[in-house]
């Protein structure tokens, strides 16, 4: 009796296996589910058969029960395997069928653009901040005292000629450089001190491709005991290496600014010709990048810093020129043009 029950189980299993193997096509998964219900559910064929167990003796019940359970497990595995095969087939079919044109653009989303000069300014802020320099701001309408007198440029000093100053009502000026921030910062924070003051400066000039009445500088100042020209050179070389990338060769040469002594100009070797001379460097092999020097003792004193105890270096980077060099912008007036055809070319 148990023997016939076991045989029935085997028959059901064989039939189910054939059906599982036959399930195919678009509704194969539904078909599998239907077969599974018919065979394995509570009211399914196997369970129907097992109702006959109650008529068997203990040994027969054990054998038949065991056979039924084993058969259920095998069938469950067969269902799972068949389902996996169908799913794998679907993946393979999808992979075989699905293709895309890699040159077709995505839906257009508005893309913003940073101003190339502001990008350079932010990069410089971050760079100097990473070296422990405080970034400070100051007024663009400046007093004669902070813009000139405190910087060792008394009235009637010939250096005032080179400045082409815009005067405003009330004896004030539009700052001609960011150097006045040296005094303001020293008075506010005292020594030791290291800061940069980026910002807008003005010169009363007529505009052309190379001249603007409005441009941008980054003033740098470091005051400490024992600060030297060597430190100035070291810091500026780091900055240039970051800004321009890679090895940068520099040279210091004398220049005159009333607020530094010694007064210097930093050049870096032209990267286009490697120093041999080309049109970019006006055939000199070097590109003038910033005026700098050791803070004049009178300027330290005007900032209420003791020039006997402290020394300092200062420099002024021209940001418009840096930007123009970086992006090969031929005319300075593009920077303030507000022209989207220009702005959209930058990240």
């Amino acid at each position: 009796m148990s023997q016939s029950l076991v045989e029935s189980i085997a028959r059901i299993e064989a039939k189910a296996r054939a059906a599982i193997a036959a399930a195919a096509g678009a509704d194969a998964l539904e078909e599998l589910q239907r077969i599974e219900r018919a065979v394995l559910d509570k009211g399914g064929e196997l369970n129907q058969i097992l109702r006959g167990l109650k008529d068997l003796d203990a040994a027969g019940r054990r054998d038949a029960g065991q056979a039924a359970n084993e058969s259920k497990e095998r069938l469950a595995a067969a269902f799972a395997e068949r389902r996996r095969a169908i799913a794998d087939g679907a993946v393979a079919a999808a992979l075989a069928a699905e293709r895309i044109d890699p040159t077709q653009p995505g839906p257009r989303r508005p893309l913003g653009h940073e101003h190339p000069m502001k990008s350079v300014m932010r990069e410089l802020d971050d760079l100097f901040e990473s070296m422990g320099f405080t970034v400070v701001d100051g007024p663009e309408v400046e007093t004669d005292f902070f813009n000139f007198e405190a910087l060792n440029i008394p009235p009637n000093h010939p250096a005032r000629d080179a400045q082409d100053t815009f005067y405003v009502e009330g004896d004030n000026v539009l700052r001609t450089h960011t150097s006045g921030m040296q005094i303001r910062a020293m008075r506010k924070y005292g020594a030791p001190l290291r800061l940069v003051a980026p910002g807008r400066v003005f010169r009363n000039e007529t505009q052309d491709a190379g001249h603007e009445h409005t441009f941008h500088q980054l003033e740098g100042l470091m005051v400490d005991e024992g600060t030297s020209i060597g430190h100035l050179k070291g810091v500026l070389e780091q900055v240039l290496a970051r800004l321009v990338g890679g090895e940068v060769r520099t040279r210091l040469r004398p220049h005159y600014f009333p607020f530094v002594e010694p007064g210097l100009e930093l050049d870096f070797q032209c990267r286009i010709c490697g120093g041999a001379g080309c049109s970019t460097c006006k055939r000199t092999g070097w590109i003038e990048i910033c005026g700098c020097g050791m803070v004049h003792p009178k300027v330290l004193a005007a900032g209420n810093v003791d020039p006997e105890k402290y020394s300092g270096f200062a420099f002024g980077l021209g940001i418009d020129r840096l930007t123009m060099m970086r992006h090969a912008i031929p005319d300075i007036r593009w920077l303030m043009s507000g022209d989207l055809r220009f702005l959209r070319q930058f990240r």
Partner: protein
Amino acid sequence: MKLSLKWLGEHVDLAGVAPDDVARELTMKTALIEDVVRPGAGLEQVRVGRVVHREKHPNADRLSFCKVDAGSGIVEVVCGAPNVAEGQKICYAPVGCTLPNGLTLEARKIRGILSHGMICSNAEMKLGEDHDGIRVLPDDAPVGRPIAEVLGLDDAILDIDNKSITHRPDLWGHYGFARELAAIFGRKLKALPVDAGLKRAAPGAGTFPIALEDTAGCPLYLALQAEFEALPASPDWLARRLEAVGMRPISLLVDLSNYVMLETGQPTHPFDADRLEGGRIVVRRAKAGEKLATLDGVARALTAEDVVIADGAQAVAIAGVMGGASTEVSASTRRLLLESARFDAARVRRTATRLGLRTEAVARFEKGLDPALPELAIRRYAQLLRQVAPGVRVRGNFSGAGELPPPAAILSLRPARARSKLGYDLPTDEMKQRLASIGFEASGSGERLEVRPPAGFARKDVACEDDLIEEVGRLAGYERVPASLPRLQCAPPRLDPLRRVERAALRTLVHECGYAECMNYSFATDRQIEREGSAAAGAKHVRLLNSLTTNATRLRRSLVPGLLEFLQKNLVDHEEVRLVEAGREYLPELPSEYEGAGLPRERRVVAAVRARRGADGEALLLEARGDAEVLLARLGIAWRGRRPEGALPPFLHPGRTIELVADGQAVGRVAALHPGVARNFGIEAPACILELDLAAVTAAPRPAARMRPISEFPPARRDLAVETPEERTVADVEKEIRAAGGEKLAEVELFDVYRGANLAAGHRSLAFRLEYRAADRTLTDAEVDAIHQKVVERLANLGIRLRA
């Protein structure tokens, strides 16, 4: 300023030093050389030749067949110039030579006769435009010599960046640069040839009467007298020297004056002594209303600030600036009075600036020349005058009034301090030697050197220890300074919150909201103000007093008008424009946050505009408001929008302005552009404006986000559409919904606004999605329905009807 290397070579032996090396060393140690020009470049192989024979070319009427003695044998040359003649000294270019015009000569047959080289015209040598014929040289030109040498073109002209010598009065002449070169190359500086016997005469017989009334404006006035029947023209060498450095030769007396200035740095002025009325000189302040016709023929109005040179009757020169026309030397001049004086630098500068007269003399006097220079210049002038015009009777002594100041104070230099500032170990002995090379006598050793500044050439720029450090540093060479990084305390830098907010705002608007960042001038143009309308015209702007640019006469009070101009321009070729700028508004009526009298408040703002052709105005405004929502969310500010309070700038649409309020304070605005202003600016597309006041944003509370507990239980959602009068704000309805919904109402979100025919007039429909949720269990449908019913009832009580 231009320097002739040949001229420099007269004062310091530069044999064996290439012009480029001179330029490089000067650039690295003294002053920037902007350019080196070689006037004889390309003429190195062109030599003086003599035409020993000429006949007509047998096969061509217009050509000549010549035999030329070029110093190294006779050559046969075919020449096409009409003016070639036997016996002439000419410029001969041999075969193989490349001329400045790029032509390389080869022996070639011209109409059957082989021509070996070429007889050159000025044009072929790039010495002029003249193509008419060959350049004929003077008869005494030595055959075989390079023509560059014969024509004085074997020179190099160095172009100095004047800005790099504004502090160096000693460098405004060749002799000063010769002194630098002597120090740089370790060569000897030759003494300047002068008429050493010439002395300043005691006042009295034979001297020219000089009354020095303005001793502050003119501490020293010297004058040389000379008489002559006739004067020769300036010799070639003199004229060429002047031309080489860019100065036009005029006449002997003037040319010598210029020559002495270009050599010593001291300007002098030649008067026709016979035209000085009363035969005397008075140096005084100009009288109010006094006028003088200067050499350039312009009548100049003078003030009491100006120092003038007068004769017995009237002003004859503006001291240190320009001479007068009435006493100018001319061909009929028979008596010279040469002025060589010291003038107050600041006074000369002020007068020149006021008159707009930038002369070579001004450029020098305003630097503050050495007190000893006037005497040196007079002696040099006398020596040169005697040399080139032997017939001239120079008075043995010169007249003078005024005194020399005491010598410059002795300075001290601490070598240790110099080493500390330079950043390397420059030996004390070398410091002393470097100083000595430029005339500073350093004595002592050890901690403190005593340094005596040189006499005779003012180094006004060397007045303190740091100035001496510069001198030794530059002459030793800055390339010796090793780059080193300072050791720093690792304290973090101070942070500027305003700057952080500005960056965050720009980052959000650019990177998330698609705006293009632009920059604009700080000026408000008249056109902008006019387009903005009457309210802006009445506002007080900071005014510029001396602008050269018509568009830069006032500082802007807002970034928006400039942005509107950009918007209008960009809409020409863009469908949609979004622009943002961070900048300052200059408000003179508010006090500055910085120290300094009369400074305006500089309010820092971020302003943005956006426009899209064909957009619905209200929809666009809501998009712009969406930008503000993203922006303020990123800035971490809790805020709400309200109708604006108080006066608005004229460019905002008063009915479509949203004030952004945080903690009771306005931090910005989103608004539609005023249609009238849009018309004025020529903006046809709907446009919106977003403004953020950075100081206000910085002041607003920005607490760190605190995590709220997250319910594990699913929410139940109900939609609610209500019909409300237009005046009732969304915020108001939402507030009522939340009040009725209580704590179980977790979210309220407006998802649709509808206006249409089936609504009452002046009404709109607002559709909200409500989310109900409990922290501790899943709400049953019955519970949710009960709360939702309370919401509906509360709205109904306020007259807000549920839409079917």
